[in-house]
Each structure stands twice: as C-alpha cells, then as structure tokens.
C-alpha cells in the first residue's frame, strides 16, 4: 500500500516537472514583456510597463511581415484545401497498382525536411519562371515562391485530414442519389461536400496556421520579401528585445480567445445536435411506442 503512495507522489512530481518544462519558458517570456529593462529579464522584476507593446505596434518591419504572412496564408489555403480534397478523392479511387507510388509521392513532403522543400522550390521555379521575361517579372517573387513551397507540404496535411474523414463516408449514399437521378456534380455538391464540412473547416484552420508559422521552408523561398516569422528570426539573431516577448503575449492572447470561442461554438452546436436527436428519438418513440401500448391495453 505504501509503495502505491510513493508511486503516486512520483507520478505527480513527474507530471508537474513535465508541464513546468512545457510552460516555464513561455511564462518567463510573458513576464519579461511587462518588465522595464531593455534586456528581457524576468527576475529581478523592476517595474511594470506596457511600453514594449507600443514599440511592437510601431515596428514597421514586423507589421509588413504580418500583412505578408496573412496574404500568403490565405493563398496557401486557397491552393492546398482544393488540392488536398482532390488528392484524397483520387486516393480512394486510383488504379490499384499505382496506389503505393501515389501514396509515396503525396506523403513525401511530410517526411522531407522543410529546408529541402524550400531549396528545391527556389531552384526549380527560378529556371521555370525564368523561361520568359514576363513570367520572371510577374511571378518570380518571394511571396509567390513561399506560397508554392508551403502548399507543397500543407496540401499533404490536408490530404491526411480528408482521408481520415472519407474512410467513414458511406458510398451507398452516393449510389442512392445517383439511382434517384442526381448528376455527378450534384452528388459532389449536395452529399459529399456537406459530409466533409467539419474536415474542410479543420483543414482551413490547420493550413492557415501551418503557413503562418512556417520557418524552414519560408526562409529559403521568401527571397527578398519577408514574413512575420522571418522578421522575427532576424531580430532574434541580432539580439533580444522585450518587444519580442510582447509579441508572444499577443499571440497567446489571440490563440486563447480563438480556442475559447471555438470551444463555445462547438459546445453550442453539440447541444443543438443533441437536442435535435432527442426530439427525433421522442417523436420516434411516440410513433412506435403507441402501437404496442395500445396492444397491451387491449390485451
């Protein structure tokens, strides 16, 4: 019995250490955002200030980077979500002998280091876009290349998300619709897409976030342009300022608000779905239940 208590205490201690390791650095960083010394320092805490947030707001490079990151993120979502969806549908229908090669090709960007994806994107597109003066002038830009490079592996994430959802799709629904005279596009728009809706939402969120915070691929593909993350990386390399901590605090704040509102929305939707289910069940019981009840009464 005693050893069980010891085990339990050790377990508690271990979990505490683990989460200390996980949260410690971030908590310390958040504290430095509110401390006055220009070298980010959590201890000793001199006095409370919000100057670093003002400084962050006035940082032109960072704000430009932020705009670019958002534009690239939206572009990546518009490329990778349709591509990932199409790839998942083809995966379920492809000629069986080609399937393993297809799987290897589409999953390989996930196993390739981001550095290599970035380099290959630049080398390849520099020559391809360089074929004519017009394409070179219009498309050979960091923003375009970063979008292409990121889409390469983010499409693979999206593919996995859709594949997981598609395995639960009942093909009989599609057959039924076709038998009832629906056309193929109708089946796609009215049956498959609504079924995939949750996967589409999570694909959009994940695609945008992975694009937004990507560094390894972007740092090569971005050329002379800059994103928020590459600006950050430059500043971290040059030195340290509490403005970076302030940025982290802002990011944590936004994520928390996002996560909480997502949770609230999900709960509300769940409650609504449960209520609808309950109503349907009650209605069904009322219909089915009425007959046997009458029978017993009669008997």
């Amino acid at each position, binding site marked *: 019995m005693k050893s069980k208590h010891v085990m339990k205490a050790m377990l508690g201690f*271990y979990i505490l250490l683990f*989460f200390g390791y*996980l*949260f*410690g*650095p*971030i908590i*310390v*960083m958040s504290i*430095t955002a509110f401390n006055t010394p220009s*070298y980010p*320092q959590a201890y*000793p805490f001199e006095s409370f200030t919000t100057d670093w947030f003002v400084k962050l707001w006035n940082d032109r490079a960072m704000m430009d980077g932020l705009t670019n990151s958002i534009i690239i993120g939206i572009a990546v979502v518009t490329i990778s979500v349709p*591509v990932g969806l*199409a*790839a998942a549908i*083809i995966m379920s*229908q492809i*000629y069986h*002998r080609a399937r393993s*090669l297809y799987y290897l090709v589409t999953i*390989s*960007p996930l*196993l*390739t*280091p*981001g*550095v*290599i*994806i970035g*380099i*290959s994107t*630049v*080398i*390849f*597109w520099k*020559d391809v876009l360089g074929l004519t003066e017009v394409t070179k002038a219009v498309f050979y830009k960091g923003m375009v290349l970063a979008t*292409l490079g990121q889409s*390469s592996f983010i*499409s693979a994430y999206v593919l996995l998300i859709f594949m997981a959802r598609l395995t639960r799709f009942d093909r009989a629904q599609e057959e039924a619709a076709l038998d009832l005279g629906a056309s193929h*596009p109708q089946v*796609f728009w009215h049956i498959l897409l609504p079924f995939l809706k949750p996967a589409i939402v999570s694909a959009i969120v994940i695609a945008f976030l992975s694009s*937004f*915070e990507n*560094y*390894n691929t972007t*740092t090569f593909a971005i050329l002379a342009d800059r994103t928020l*993350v590459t600006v*950050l*990386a430059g500043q*971290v*390399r040059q030195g*340290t300022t509490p403005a*970076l*901590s302030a940025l*982290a605090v802002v*990011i*944590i704040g936004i*994520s928390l608000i996002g*996560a909480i509102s997502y949770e609230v929305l999900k709960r509300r939707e769940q409650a609504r779905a449960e209520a609808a289910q309950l109503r349907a069940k009650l209605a069904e019981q009322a219909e089915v239940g009425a007959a046997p009840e009458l029978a017993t009464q009669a008997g």
Partner: protein
Amino acid sequence: MSSRAFVFIVPIVVIAVFWLMARWEARFHKDASHKGFFERNGKVLGIAFILLVAFWALFLVVLPYLYMVVESFHPTLPPMKRGGPEDVLTFRQYESLVVLPTGGTNWTHINAFFFSIIASMAVTALNFAICYPLAYYMAQVGTAQKVRLILLGLIVPYWVNEILRAFSLRLLLASKGLINNILVGIGILDTPIDFLGNNVGLYVGLSYAYLLVMIFPLYNAIESLDKNQVEAARDLGAPWWRIHKDIVIPYAKPGIASGCTMVFMFSAGALAAPLFLGGPRTLWFTSVIYNFFFQAFNWARGSAYAFILLFACIALVMLMLRLFKVSLGETIK
C-alpha cells in the same frame, strides 16, 4: 538534350506506363461492377481533380525534387555560364563534403554532419524517455477528464511559434538569463554557466520543439492496448519494469518507431533551434546548407549537401526499423 530538361520526361513516362497498364487491365480483365474514373465523378469534376493533383504532385513535389537532384550534379557556375559548355555533370559537389579544394580533408563539414546526426539521435532518445511515462499515463491510467486536461495543456504552448519558443528558452538559458541570474543571485554560482556555448541550449531547444511529435504517436499506440493484459501481468506478479519491457513496449512498437522517426528527421532537418540556441562554435549541418545559399550563393553544393543529409537520415531510419523489426508501412500509418 540538356540534363535539366530530362527531369520533365521522367514523370510523364511513369504516368504513361501506369495508364497503359490500367487500360490493358480494363480491356482484358473485364469487371462489370467496375466504373471508370470519369463515370464515377463526372467529366468536369474528374478533370478538375486530375488537374489539381497533377499540378501539386508534379510541379510542387516531384519536379522540384528531381530538379534539385540534377542541380546537385552540376558545377558551381555564375548564372551567365549556366547551360554553356562548362555546365557538365559532375560528382564534385558531393566530393567536397570530404575533400577540400586544396586536397585536404574537410573536417569542418564532416564534423558538422556527424554532430547533427548523433545529436539528433540523442534528442530522440531524450524525448522518448521524457514522453513515454506521460503517454502511458494518458493512455492507460488517467481518467478521461484528466486526459482531456493534459491534452489541452500539451497543445497550448505550441500555439506560440517555433522562433518565439526558441527565444523564450534563450531568455532562460543565456548567461544573463533567468537561471543564471537566480543561481548567481542566491550565491550558488560565482560566474554564470554558458548554457548556450556548451550546447545545452541546443539539446533543450530541439527536445522542446518536438515533444508533441513524440507524445502523440506513443499515446495513440498505447491507448489501444487492452488494460486487461497489464492487469493480468500484474496479477501474475510481474514487476512494473517487466510489464513495460514485455507487454507495453512490444505492443506500442509501431507508435514508438513513428515517434522516433519523426523526432529524428525533424531534429536533423531543424534550422531554428541550432541557429538561435547553438553555441558560436557549433555548426549544425542545416546551417552549413543555409550558409551555402545565403552567403556563398552556391546552390549546387547546397543541394548536394541537402541530399546527403536526406539520404543519410532515411538510411539510418531504415536501418533502425530493420533492427527493431518494424515495417515501414506500420510506421507511416
């Protein structure tokens, strides 16, 4: 024909071969229930799917990779001379990892290469040791409510991006950082310890960056283990370490393999942690590649080095999987 143009032919040939095989099979092994691709999806959508996937698979994945392979077999030339008579196929870029232009041995790069590989293995082992107990706890011991709380706690810190996480570790470990400030302040130390210089920062940074990559595959694998098996072993008097050694770990092997593979591949290919947390004398192999691109503008050599890294990593992972008798298919799943 130029070797670079050749890259475009390869995928076309492969696709044509598979297409012919499919046609051949459809003609000679008729299957009445089988429907063609366009029959199942309709013409417009079918074409849209194929175009989207072809664009991705060819122009964003296969062609850039092949193009980079070909590039790595070319000499380093100024843009004007590319495609000229001096632009021949050569192994020079690969040789340069070992041999200096002067004829000596290129120890700087060889050391960087082996250091990256060995340090990544160390980080993988470290992360396995840190994550295994928690994954086991989540999968077998904890109540559903506690597990949900832990999952949330695991994900929240990773909302902050990679660079800022590296930055936060630097605030802790730098010589003017929190840990040194406290240790010196209390009087345990006289002079601060240089955590970044002696690579503690690097190991901590890599381990911290890829904790989740280890913990989720472990958790998924252990979760499906029937609790009764552990109970039975315990009832039969097995000590706790034998339960893990003989039941949990063999059962979770595919998950362990996939967690370890990913942590290893990610750390070997990491750029942020070595750049921001490595000591001034430490050279990570990806930093060498980075420098070839941004300081030397030597893309051919950068490509060659990148492929050396990729193939070394894949070979090592394959070897490990073979040693521990796990199939690759199980790992990717």
